[in-house]
């Protein structure tokens, strides 16, 4: 545990000393904030119009109308920026010979993997936490549905955990950061798209459908916490971390 803490501190330092964390966070926040603001303005204009024409105002679901669209888009933005955050984690240690230091220190490879995973995940969680100012800002204007909002953030947090774990695994496969990024894009986009487009009820499609990342995440973002989705995200994350552990360990046997 102690070693994990030391490694998390070291990785966080590296993230915040180099520009990478700031660049990724800035791009993520700029795009998603733009999407959120334009959605909020659109809905507010729409409700104004309804009031002006004295129409029967349908009950406005603030979560479904204001938060859901930008959150769904956020999942895609995270899919595109997180591999850039994780690509250097192990690849850079291997390329810069610092792996020799870590591998000859009294640190287990699982501690190494967990330290790196937690550090990168923490950076993403900070990015997500910054977006919490959206509902806080809207609090003065309307009543916020906090429960579905909590479900959305839980889903986004777990999903970014999985993205980070997959990115870490990709980073453990190579010494080249670009290749690591391309591999994690490949895995993530593949997982995102599986299951889309097929509609028959064979075992094959139901298995493939279960693997589909987008469906599971969408449930969370809509406000539904389902144990199936929880199990999916957590077990996939653990599996990716386990594979990373195997890759790190196997370097010894080469």
């Amino acid at each position, binding site marked *: 545990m*102690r*070693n994990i803490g*030391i*490694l998390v501190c*070291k990785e966080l*330092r*590296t993230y915040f*000393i*180099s520009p990478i964390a700031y660049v990724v966070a800035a791009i993520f926040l700029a795009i998603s904030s733009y999407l959120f603001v334009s959605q909020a303005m659109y809905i507010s204009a729409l409700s104004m119009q309804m009031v002006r024409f004295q129409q029967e105002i349908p009950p406005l679901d603030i979560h479904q109308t204001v938060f859901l669209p930008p959150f769904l888009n956020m999942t895609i933005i995270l899919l595109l920026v997180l591999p850039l955050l994780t690509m250097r984690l192990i690849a850079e240690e291997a390329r*810069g*010979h*610092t*792996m*020799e*230091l*870590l*591998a*000859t*220190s*009294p*640190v*287990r490879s699982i501690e190494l993997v967990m330290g790196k995973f937690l550090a990168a995940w923490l950076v993403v969680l900070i990015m997500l936490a910054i977006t919490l100012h959206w509902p806080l800002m809207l609090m003065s204007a309307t009543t916020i549905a906090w429960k579905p909002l909590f479900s959305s953030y839980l889903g986004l947090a777990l999903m970014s955990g999985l993205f980070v774990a997959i990115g870490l695994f990709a980073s453990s496969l190579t010494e080249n950061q670009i290749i690591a990024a391309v591999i994690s894009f490949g895995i993530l986009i593949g997982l995102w798209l599986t299951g889309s487009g097929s509609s028959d009820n064979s075992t094959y499609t139901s298995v493939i459908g279960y693997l589909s990342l987008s469906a599971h995440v969408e449930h969370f973002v809509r406000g539904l916490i389902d144990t199936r989705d929880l199990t999916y995200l957590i077990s996939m994350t653990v599996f990716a971390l386990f594979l990373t552990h195997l890759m790190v360990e196997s370097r*010894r*046997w*080469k």
Partner: protein
Amino acid sequence: MIEAIGLGKRYGPHVAIEDVSFAVQKGEVLAFLGPNGAGKTTTMRILTGFMSATAGTARIAGFDIFDHPMEVKRRIGYLAENPPLYREMTVAEYLTFVAKIKGLSGRQVTVALGDVLEKCALGHVAKRLIPNLSRGYKQRVGLAQALVHNPEVLILDEPTTGLDPQQIIEIRQLITSLAGGHTIILSTHILPEATAICQRVVIINKGRVVAVDSQEHLSARVRQTEQISLGVRRPQPDTVSILNTLTGVCRVTPKPMDDNGQVFIVESELGQDIREALSETVYKNGWGLLEMRAITLSLEDVFLHLTMQETGLDPAHVETPEPTETPLA
């Protein structure tokens, strides 16, 4: 302290090292000597736990490197060929991180950092970023990294490669000052380095240990006769024949005359000390003694001899008589 037993490493059909065995006593400095690609780095990487072996094992401080890797790693400081340095850290930050990751905590870290900065004379660059340091300083930071947790065993892979002569001397002095308190293995392909800082030498070639011994013993093993270089001012035509009559002398080879006189290489049987008889003869005949010194084989000669023999090349150009038997077969 360190004991390697039949270490081997294969990559498919390619054999990197085979049956490497040796032992190092506590406080001893051992050199790993061999041409590039001989298997020095592989052996060191196995000892430090960075790599696995395909055969054999090793014990460090009584712990088997495969059964108790964590215990072993706590007791080892390792400087790899390329010092493992982080670009984004200052020297002090880096050494603090290494101290923590090696298992020190709290006060220990601060104390260890102060000690190692002083030992490696890094105090004035402690706040500099590592990539801005010169090659020599980077190497010193690498050495400091291996030393920071005060390990019992130090494994240094070519610690002086790529440094200028002044820096080489500094690093060697530093290593010499560490001997005694630490058990040290260092690898090098520079022969004088092994002579300068190590008590014992393991010569390794093509993945096999060719010889393990002290330098003096090694030269004695390759040499079949004692050789003395004798310089006289006024040699006579019968000098060679007179010298040949001395007891123990088996061959006298005159070197060409020059302005100062002539040099004779006098060979005698192993273990025979003929220096006294020689000087007396020269004095009695009034040849004028200029110099007399025992010729010892340098480590270069021994090294060439051993590694050539291994590959079946003719070691004739090494300054030794034709070997009548293989000294290390």
